[in-house]
């Protein structure tokens, strides 16, 4: 589901870029426009062709941007990883980007809708059916935010596994079975075990697949930091007698190559 390699990525990290992104499962694609970016995360606003459902928090996107009329759902913004981008298909004009920026700031700060923007009629009542549409759109977009959410707030690989297992309601034995071995999870979640000794690259790739994450640079960075931080005293394998094998980068190369194969 993720793009294959960083050097093949279209650059969705440029504000105003319009890209088609994938999620963690095959739930289709989502057209988004980038509004802000860092090296490993992009804030985006989804685009929808359902212009008749526009509210005051939906900015009209001109026909010539995508080839069809669309609205930018500012209320439905989210964060993605750059690897989720399949294709950059257009760029909005500076004027549209400025309007998007104004409306996004107003939404984030709880301010009023700026005047003179091309937005839809306001929502005046909770029984407005456009709110049902928004509910649907939010449900549709959520899986696309999952890859970034899955890694949010995790400083170490152990934290990431713990949080993600909790999110997915996965029991310890269920996840250990995915790897084909047992007795390693508690120590990995406590960052008290060197992954390289606990799990072969293929086994770790299967675990990550089960946790519905792809081969992203942010996951790699977290995992690498954790591996490098593992002290020799803590670097014990499940059997207790296997020496550390290989450096962090070559281990991660194998894991991520395998993960890409599994996701392709």
């Amino acid at each position: 589901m993720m793009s294959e390699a960083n050097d093949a990525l279209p650059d969705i990290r440029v504000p105003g870029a319009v890209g088609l992104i994938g999620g963690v499962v095959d739930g289709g694609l989502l057209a988004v426009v980038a509004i802000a970016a860092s090296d490993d995360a992009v804030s985006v606003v989804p685009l929808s062709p359902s212009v008749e459902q526009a509210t005051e928090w939906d900015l009209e996107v001109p026909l010539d941007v995508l080839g069809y009329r669309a609205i930018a759902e500012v209320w439905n913004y989210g964060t993605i990883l750059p690897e989720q981008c399949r294709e950059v298909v257009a760029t909005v004009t500076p004027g549209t980007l400025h309007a998007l920026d104004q409306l996004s700031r107003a939404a984030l700060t709880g301010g009023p809708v700026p005047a003179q923007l091309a937005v839809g009629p306001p929502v005046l009542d909770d029984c407005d059916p456009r709110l049902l549409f928004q509910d649907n759109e939010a449900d549709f977009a959520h899986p696309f935010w999952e890859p970034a959410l899955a890694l949010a707030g995790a400083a170490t690989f152990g934290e990431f596994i713990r949080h993600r297992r909790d999110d997915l309601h996965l029991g310890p034995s269920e996840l250990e079975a995915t790897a084909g071995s047992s007795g390693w999870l508690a120590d990995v979640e406590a960052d008290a075990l060197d992954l390289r000794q606990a799990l072969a690259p293929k086994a770790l790739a299967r675990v990550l697949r089960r946790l519905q994450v792809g081969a992203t640079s942010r996951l790699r960075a977290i995992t690498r930091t954790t591996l490098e931080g593992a002290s020799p005293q803590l670097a014990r394998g499940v059997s207790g007698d296997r020496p550390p094998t290989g450096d962090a980068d070559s281990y991660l190369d194998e894991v991520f190559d395998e993960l890409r194969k599994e996701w392709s």
Partner: protein
Amino acid sequence: MNDSAVAGWRQAVRRGELPSDLVSLLRNVALRMCRRRVLPPSFAPYGQWDDEAGEEIFAAWYADRLVSPGQLLALLDRSSSEAALRALAERSLRQHLLNRADRSQTRNLFGRVVAVLRERPAFVLVHAASRPANTWYGLRPPAGRDDADVPLWSGPERLLVAHGWALGDLAIIRYRASAAKLSPVLDSGELERFITGLMSRTNTALTAAQIMTVLAARLDLGAPQTHDLEAEPIPASASRAPEDAVALADTARAIVDGLTSRQREVLRRADDTVASIAKALRCSVGTIVNERRRIAVAVSRLSEDEDERGVLLNMAADLLYPLDDE
């Protein structure tokens, strides 16, 4: 699935090309929908679904919805595989058929709006004009208050449309599920409720043209038609024929086919409390309430009146009960 094929089609369409294999896929979607009878026969061009009907609706869908307004690109932009494209295309075609039928009613709708304003006691002429479309009507004021006290709407159209949305779900154009031919029904009661609500919310007098503008936005009817028509009589409902039972069953199947998996589960658990459904489906109570509203709108659209709506809802729910035994 052939992800690269979809990406190739997307790029080609963006360049202004129409790959023949993409057109072929879309035609197959239309023909397959006809064979599966995913919509009631009343929506078929000649009252029955066959390959000829499939070709006809494909041509209209392709020309009216996919190509010129760019909706084909919109479908491709949301598709990660051929399977996803087929599913989205099917939904688009279903929407096209419903929307086309709705739009065929805009002329009648305007006539009905004018008739309601003229004939119903709830409304009163506030300001005459040479054309019915521009004549101002308001809610009949309480005894002792002058009709002239009602102000004329002078706000922006956008705000008037917002008031129209604020009135909630709307099923003015409905379809007789049991009819062999397309038989749209304009629900005058619902229309009066809508106009009354709009005038009440704005506390102003409105013209038929303004009301049509709001209805056009709410019902996605395109540019409102406000010809100077007299209200046209709507044919009386025919009595229910034996073959209508078959049409009703087809309609119930079409309704179930158009629901999401979560909506089907909500319908299947129709007798359960909202809280217990929410717990079973691991979502909020609000989500279940919203899903019930969506189901209600879908069923209302394809039923002539509340009786038929009840029958259809039960039939649709019955279709889902076998899942319990699996």
